[in-house]
């Protein structure tokens, strides 16, 4: 669908907030879903870029979707140069969303780096769903350094407990985000806790080790290179592992990007 850039602001070095105005017919994304963006008519870069939805709202004259992104290559560099009023095509929402459990008493979010974006949308959704019911929302948020903790204020508004970690110790706990989570994991009651995570692969590997051997449920949102984003090209394959240890393939854009952590073959 044809969108128009509303805001494209650099929050900290190389990290941007982008909001795009869309027609009212754009379907409301569920937490965990993503959109593909591209500039119409451009053949280099050729492919759209996938971004998890960070925020979505409807107004009288349409809808607005927002993403957080980091400049990592050609596509995101060009995206960072768009200004208010520029056109941007947005396709979606695509992908399997997080499973939501309105009755659960405690929800734990773990995010590393730009993984905070889909986690924030999810957390906001969970807060909204809980209504008057008392639900504990806890967030572990890690980044390389303090300046890169984008969107931290928003997370603090939504979650009652927020534990920050930085690799260099410039804010919160020093070390990977999973280090602090490891200290608390045994205090989480499996029957009444749901865990959701999004971040770099090493974070998932550490998390996988922490929840293995416990009944704790944990869903993760993974990132893969994509071409079509809609399930046709089979380019975004991820390796899954079934109960017998057999490796199978799944599409990050259709069967994912949300997966149960125990299904992913992280080897």
């Amino acid at each position, binding site marked *: 669908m044809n969108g128009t850039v509303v805001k494209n602001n650099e929050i900290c070095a190389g990290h941007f907030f982008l909001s795009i105005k869309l027609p009212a017919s754009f379907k409301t994304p569920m937490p965990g879903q993503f959109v593909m963006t591209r500039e119409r008519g451009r053949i280099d870069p050729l492919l759209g870029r996938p971004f998890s939805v960070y925020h979505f709202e409807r107004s009288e004259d349409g809808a607005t979707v927002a993403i957080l992104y980091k400049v990592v290559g050609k596509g995101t560099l060009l995206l960072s140069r768009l200004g208010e009023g520029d056109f941007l095509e947005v396709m979606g929402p695509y992908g399997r969303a997080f499973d939501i459990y309105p009755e659960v008493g405690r929800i734990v979010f773990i995010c590393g780096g730009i993984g905070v974006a889909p986690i924030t949308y999810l957390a906001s959704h969970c807060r909204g769903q809980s209504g008057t019911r008392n639900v504990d929302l806890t967030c572990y948020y890690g980044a390389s350094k303090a300046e890169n903790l984008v969107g931290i204020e928003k997370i603090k508004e939504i979650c009652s407990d927020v534990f920050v970690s930085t690799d260099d110790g410039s804010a919160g706990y020093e070390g990977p985000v999973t280090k602090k989570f490891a200290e608390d994991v045994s205090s989480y009651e499996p029957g009444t806790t749901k865990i959701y995570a999004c971040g770099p692969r090493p974070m998932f590997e550490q998390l996988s080790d922490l929840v293995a051997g416990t009944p704790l449920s944990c869903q993760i949102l993974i990132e893969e290179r994509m071409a079509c984003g809609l399930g*046709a090209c089979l380019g975004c394959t991820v390796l899954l592992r079934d109960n017998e240890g057999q490796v199978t393939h799944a599409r990050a854009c259709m069967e994912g990007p949300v997966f149960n952590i125990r299904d992913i073959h992280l080897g």
Partner: protein
Amino acid sequence: MKDVRPEMQVDIGGLIIKNPVMTASGTFGYGEEYAPYVDIERLGAIIAKGISLGPRAGNKPPRIMETPCGMLNAIGLENPGVNAFIKEKLPFLSQFDVPVIANVFAETIDDFKKVTELLSKARGVAGLEINISCPNVKKGGIIFGSDPDMAHTVTKEVKCQTDLPVIIKLTPNVTDICLIAKSVEEGGADAISLINTLTGISVDIERRIPHLANVTGGLSGPAIKPVALRMVWQVAKRVKVPVIGIGGIVSASDAIEFLIVGARAIQVGTASFFNPSATVDIIDGIEGYLKRHKMADVNDLIGTFDEEGKRCSD
């Protein structure tokens, strides 16, 4: 002049299609994913993702990498196998008034024959496109399409197994594509489609490893269009059977370039990835071009390339 719609029908070797725009194998799945974005009945034909005798899991990830004006893919011909295709995928496609052409690949002549036989008995298959870019495992892995004799044999053996129109899809990774084209024409091909992807690689310079798990992949997209056009132009001059052009077509003007150099029809591939309605946009664009140039029939455009450049603009 009254606003009469130009005639868009073309004959691609015994199969008449409503317009020259087809989907390229491997880029449209088996149709289901695109149905929400494309009015499938407007397409000239659908060429489904390649099928082999048995199911294939495909390559380990990473399978794709973007390159300037293009992309490399090493999907690895992942598919459910011919029986699952006939039972599970064909019924969805059969509900539309669009010819479905099954794309077929195999690693031995025998397997080519077996798959051809099975597909020829299935309801809903209007034609076959034979992918000869795969290795002949009985001959040390030489690509079928790189050897004129092997290409001839595959064509002949497949034709013996079926009454369906047979399109042979050529690989450009050869020294002389006209040799291969002539050879498959002599083998009985009803039409020839070209080009398949160009073999390429991409390097992660920080880690000094390939970007693709398979190391090599097939290059597609606008970057390959000049090569594809040149090959279509050369082959169309050498053979009498219809030639179907593939390679970097993302807009109607790209498609028209291929028609002008002699392609009877074209396939749209990678473009569908970033513009799901590319095929329909291109159909509309070709029609618009014909109207603007006061051509009543798309066949009046095909093969009108003025190599010496003497034509003034209309």
